[in-house]
């Protein structure tokens, strides 16, 4: 037999369910643009009586029509799309960071746009020296023209030192950014560990399950996992207790409340190493911006010579290129102007015909022994872009470059000029693993082109991977984000349902009123 107030209970559940649906519609509409928000849904079930749950046989007809109930508030999310998005996001972050570092290098080493002979780059300084040598070749006995060569040569060394200093700046800034990124990564891991704990406690306390968790906490964690995936590769596994375990290239960095942090260390040779706090082993991510930092700060390209360096053409590669330029420039220029002249105005030669000795025009600028704050130039110290300078002899005598005062022989002026920009110049620029043969101008052209091609490649890759990551984000949003029309439709539907159930309740009340107040009243 049907219980008298069964319909009221049905209506009560219906009203409560529809009210809750309207609450969640409001929640979705207000959070449509909240970062990390996943749309929620009330899972509605029809209440059915299952006789197997009762100790007695139940007449189903009597208890039918008990209405609706809420199974829980779920999030609409697809773990596969999360995984795909995070993989692409890591890749995009790697390409983007690589592009940023190389872009900084290009800005530091850039010539004046596409005009190789104006502005303040090394190409311009070399062109000015070429021009000065050309003028000097017109009258090598002219001391004023020889002086111009000295001024232009000094500008070349100053430009090289400036570029070296700019590279120092790029390296310093990149390492600083890297430090901040590592700190942010570690902070995020700690937050994730705290969220793991909060979620696990919530799940345990409220007996929620994998479908109905603490949604807002899950959103926060998912957002952090997204952000984490921009730093390294992330292999995420959801555990039964509600926590997530995160691995980076096989190494567990987050398990329950335990997070392993990254330590960043600068080595004596200037390379940087990222290692795990727990094991001390090197952090070997396969993608992400932290990998890009490591690859391009330590990147020595084919000139890799130490364990800490990488094969990417990064800061160390281009610094090496500049140092090779400075060293080779000094060495070649120090083999041009003969140091001794015979009575006929010709260079003194050895018995085998070779020149007996050359004037030292360039050297390394080093602190003067026993004279604090003073510097001297020497060839007994390795010359690089940071220390190259014109020799002390040249500083004290602006005409030092002259083969012989009063001698109009232009041979040496032509020789210097040819080294700078000769069509057939064959100077060997030797780095640890690379060798380039040509003039100084062609060498600078070559490494500028290599850098430009690298920037071009990583710009294209960054765009392509960002497009894929955006596409994955769209696909994920197709599932998880809020659609205003959809929510408005739900609002209308459940509002109607609420009104309808209220009407049912009124009807039932009227029915009971008939039963209670008007039944058996015949003859009164």
């Amino acid at each position: 037999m049907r219980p008298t107030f069964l319909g009221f209970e049905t209506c009560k559940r219906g009203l409560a369910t529809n009210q809750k649906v309207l609450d969640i519609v409001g929640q979705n509409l207000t959070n449509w643009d909240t970062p990390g928000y996943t749309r929620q849904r009330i899972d509605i079930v029809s209440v059915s009586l299952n006789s197997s749950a009762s100790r007695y046989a139940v007449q189903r007809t009597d208890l039918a029509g008990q209405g609706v109930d809420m199974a829980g508030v779920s999030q609409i999310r697809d773990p596969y799309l999360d995984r795909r998005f995070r993989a692409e996001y890591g890749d995009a972050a790697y390409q983007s960071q690589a592009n940023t570092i190389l872009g900084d290098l290009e800005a530091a080493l850039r010539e004046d746009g596409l005009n190789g002979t104006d502005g303040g780059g090394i190409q311009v300084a070399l062109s000015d020296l070429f021009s000065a040598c050309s003028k000097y070749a017109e009258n090598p006995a002219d001391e004023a023209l020889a002086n111009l060569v000295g001024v232009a040569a000094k500008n070349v060394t100053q430009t090289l030192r400036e570029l070296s200093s700019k590279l120092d700046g790029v390296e310093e800034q990149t390492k600083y950014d890297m430090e901040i990124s590592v700190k942010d990564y570690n902070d995020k891991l700690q937050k994730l560990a705290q969220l793991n704990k909060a979620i696990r406690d919530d799940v345990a306390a409220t007996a929620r399950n994998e479908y109905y968790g603490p949604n807002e906490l899950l959103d926060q964690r998912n957002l952090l996992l997204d952000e984490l995936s921009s730093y390294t590769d992330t292999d995420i596994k959801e555990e039964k207790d509600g926590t997530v375990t995160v691995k980076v290239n096989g190494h567990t960095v987050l398990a329950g409340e335990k997070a392993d942090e990254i330590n960043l260390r600068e080595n004596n040779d200037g390379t940087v190493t990222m290692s795990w706090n727990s094991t001390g082993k090197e952090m070997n991510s396969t993608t992400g911006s932290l990998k890009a930092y490591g690859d391009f700060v330590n990147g020595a390209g084919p000139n890799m010579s130490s364990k800490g360096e990488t094969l990417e053409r990064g800061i160390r590669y281009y610094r090496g290129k500049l140092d090779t330029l400075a060293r080779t420039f000094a060495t070649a220029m120090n083999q041009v102007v003969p140091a001794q002249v015979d009575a006929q105005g010709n260079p003194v030669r050895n018995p085998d015909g070779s020149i007996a000795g050359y004037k030292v025009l360039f050297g390394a600028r080093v602190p003067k022994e026993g004279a604090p704050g003073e510097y001297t130039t020497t060839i007994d110290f390795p010359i690089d872009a940071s220390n190259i300078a014109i020799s002390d002899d040249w500083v004290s005598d602006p005409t030092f470059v002259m083969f012989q005062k009063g001698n109009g022989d232009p041979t040496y002026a032509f020789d210097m000029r040819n080294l700078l920009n000769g069509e057939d110049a064959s100077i060997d620029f030797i780095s640890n693993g690379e060798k380039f043969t040509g003039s100084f101008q062609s060498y600078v052209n070559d490494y500028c082109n290599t850098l430009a091609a690298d920037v071009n490649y990583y710009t294209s890759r960054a765009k392509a991977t960002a497009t894929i990551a955006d596409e994955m984000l769209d696909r994920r949003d197709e599932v998880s984000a809020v659609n205003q029309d959809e929510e408005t439709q739900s609002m209308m539907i459940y509002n109607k349902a609420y009104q309808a159930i209220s009407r049912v309740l009124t009807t039932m009340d009227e029915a009971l009123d008939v039963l209670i107040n008007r039944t058996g009243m015949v003859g009164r």
Partner: protein
Amino acid sequence: MRVTTRSMSRNYLKTLNNNLGKRSESMRRMTTKMKYENLSENVADGYRAIRADQRIFKIESQLSGIENAMGELETADQVLQDVLEVMTDLAQGDIERAANVGEPEKRQTVANNIKIIKDQILQFANGKYGDKYLFSGTNNGSAPFTVDKDGQICYNSIPVKDIQKDADGYFRKDVNTGERIPIPWDKDVYLDIGQGVKVEESHIDTATAFKISFSGLEILGMGETDGMPNNIYDLLSDIEDALRAEPYGAEEQKEVMRLHDQFMERHSALLMSETDLGSRVNFLERTTDRLKSEVDTLESVKKNLVATDMEEESVALQEHEAVWKATLALGANLFQQSLIDFLR
């Protein structure tokens, strides 16, 4: 496909930003007149433009050198013309006429004239272009030609009549040992006319350069022939001495005529040198034209590679403007309307 408000908003902003970026890029191309600013934006074209620019710079440097050399050659040409001019009367029979035995006054007059001409020749031989001696080879520290106490003309302090030339250059022989002694500071001077002067072991590859120097030895002559000096100065000294000889008879006249014949040969050589100078100037003029034409071509190549096509770009800018405005209008409609707007 489920279109969500968040992705619609994000993608709209991305599209709006892209279109704004294209408009901004187009404006940059218009204002800077450059298709791109960084080499990394178009490596292949950018590199070709840089190479063109560097080549232009190199050619302009060569043109400056040629201009200077032409000035030098033209000055040398003027000096030679002056030398030839002062010797015109001598070459047109003054010596022959004065050589006659019966005209002692005329001989004295011509001899005095020769003395003046010799001084002029010495001045011309030490002629300068700016601070540079024109006929000094590589010696620019002091006047190359001087006259010693015996009245002989010397080149870098060595009597010119003692100087000879072989494949290795100018030299003199030691009086006692006969050893070959090179003449100091008399290497040739060369100019780069666009072939790039090659230098090997401090020696210029002469095939790659254009010789601009004029050795005074070549022009004025050096060494001796049949006991007569080849250089015009000493030769004129000998003629002067022969004209002043006392007593002056048939033998002396014969000697003057022998020296006169030698003088006429050297005069012809000077005329040849002047012609040679003229042809060198002509060659440099043609080279200048060729290099200037190359600069024009390279400028055009560079322009095509990096310069903005203003007509094309102004049309593109209008398109970007239109698209940007359309995107803004779309946004106004896109976000204004939703189902909520139609609820009663």
